[in-house]
């Protein structure tokens, strides 16, 4: 197309009538990309189903999680089948307890462990990494050396050790999982802080005399949120997996409370007695949680990754 063929006055008119172009923020951009990703949406839907079930599952069914039906007990293979008629939607376990309510409770506890453990690990890891990276120098190398040592500690064995020694309670489980899983987070945050440190706004804050710790909290940490969010979503399923593993060994949640790991473990033993539903339903929700977090986490990473434009 040559220049002469363009209708210049018309073009000028069109340009002047155009609205001002709206800028897109990082988050708007990221959320647009996230919601275009079908796998990520699927992940969100799965998570929503699990969350709703965990929150209201125990209210829907007519049975409570710890009520033992003595008519069914000892004959779960025939009388404890899943049925809509007697209200045991997912059947019962071999002690006659309703699996619908128990699976709901297990899903709730697994979700809680995942979220609380991740929260602890995010807070500790972010602060540690930000301080280490920002202060730098000898403090930095000492702090990172400690992270190296912690990363060489066989996590699962120490977790079991702590649970055996200080009692098998939910609170200890939450806290120790959170406290043991922060080193990777600290590393990632430190790396990011190093690149932030030399930016102008940090320099400005320093020049106006803001104390170091305040700079870290007010200026460094908010700028780390993107990468921390991505890593946290990927950490949740890992922690749920860890909790299930611990509960599977019988070292986590205690009866009559339950978690998905305990339910799967019981269901695995019940495989020999033809009560397949005892394994199938907890497993279904466990896998939905895992898929959900994997897909949503992957989607978030793709959406926020600056390389992938």
């Amino acid at each position, binding site marked *: 197309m040559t220049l002469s063929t363009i209708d210049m006055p018309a073009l000028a008119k069109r340009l002047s009538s155009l609205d001002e172009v709206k800028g897109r923020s990082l988050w708007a951009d990221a959320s647009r990309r996230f919601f275009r990703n079908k796998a990520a949406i699927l992940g969100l839907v799965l998570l929503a189903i699990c969350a709703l079930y965990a929150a209201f599952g125990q209210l829907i069914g007519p049975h409570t999680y710890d009520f033992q039906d003595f008519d069914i007990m000892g004959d779960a293979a025939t009388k404890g089948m899943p049925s809509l008629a007697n209200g045991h939607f997912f059947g019962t376990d071999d002690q006659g307890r309703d699996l619908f309510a128990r699976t709901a409770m297990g899903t709730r506890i697994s979700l809680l462990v995942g979220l609380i453990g991740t929260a602890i690990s995010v807070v500790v890891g972010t602060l540690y990494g930000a301080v280490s990276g920002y202060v730098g120098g000898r403090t930095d190398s000492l702090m990172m050396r400690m992270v190296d040592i912690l990363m060489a*500690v066989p996590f699962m064995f*120490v977790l079991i050790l702590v649970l055996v020694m200080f009692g098998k309670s939910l609170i200890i489980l939450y806290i120790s999982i959170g406290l043991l899983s922060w080193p990777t987070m600290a590393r990632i945050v430190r790396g990011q802080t190093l690149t932030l440190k030399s930016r102008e706004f940090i320099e400005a804050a320093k020049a106006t005399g803001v104390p170091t710790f305040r700079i870290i909290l007010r200026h460094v940490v908010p700028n780390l949120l993107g990468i921390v969010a991505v890593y946290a979503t990927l950490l949740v399923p890992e922690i749920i997996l860890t909790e299930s593993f611990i509960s599977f060994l019988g070292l986590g949640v205690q009866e009559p409370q339950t978690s998905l790991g305990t339910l799967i473990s019981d269901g695995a033993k019940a495989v020999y007695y033809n009560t397949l539903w005892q394994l199938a339903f907890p497993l279904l929700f466990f896998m939905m949680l895992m898929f959900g977090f994997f897909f949503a986490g992957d989607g978030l990473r793709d959406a926020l990754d600056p390389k992938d434009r």
Partner: protein
Amino acid sequence: MFSYILKRTLGAIPTLLALIIISFLLMHAAPGGPFTLDKHPPPEVMANLNAKYGLDQPLLVQLWRYLTGIIFHFDFGPSFVYKDRTVNEIIAQGFPVTLAYGGWAFVFAVTIGVSLGIVAAIFQNTWLDYLSIGTTIGASVLPNFVLGPILILVFTRWLGWLPGGGWEGGDWRHMAMPIIAMATAYMASIARITRSSMLEVLTSNHIRTARAKGLPSWKVITRHALKPALIPVLSYLGPVFVAMITGSVVVDMLFSTAGIGKFFVDSALNRDYAVMMGVTLLAGFLTIFFNLLVDVAYAWIDPKIRY
């Protein structure tokens, strides 16, 4: 190269010491010692027991003894529960079993995972790619304690092909299910890592050059693409090998294979701290050792990496 290995080995020593000291202190911070039983033996008996195991000494002396015992004699002390056995004997009994199925699981996870990843990368966005990625996503949400029961259900209950448990000196029929249960999740991760790094390598300049000078496709891949593509995989292998040992806890429970995991769970339930400590330290040693090995292999494969 040699000085690098030496430096890394020396660097591992403080880590090991810290590990020993932390776990020793943990062991002693625990409420209830190994001899707090339901029955209360007379105080003289308790005093004798404590003296025999050195528990009446000050904490620092106990720590020193434990430390020197491990360093100079590779001796983790006596078991607190099995009175006639030392931790060493228990480890020596369980570890070879774990190593047998763990090693095979490692081999299968790496070979199948890497091949799947390469196939998926070469045939990107074809049905082969989708098939292998679908398989790996499915496998990655099946940790060993979930996969184990399913395997037993299918192969023992329904098909009746494989025995549901036992070891029998490592007969392959007894090894098959433990290996599958352990390898699957790691195979999936390895396949995913291989695929993404292979995709990255395949678009790089030296591959374009190799194609441009007319090398056949298979030669481009085996000669030029494979080695750089495997570097990220390599860094994943150190932790994986250790995870195989952790995984033995589940495998030993599900399949009644008498590996190190069985002793760990038994000792956890019996509060046999000495055995727990020994296994934990063993896992720590192996973590450090394999990370070192991976780093050295790194330096060897990638000449660009200089330390």
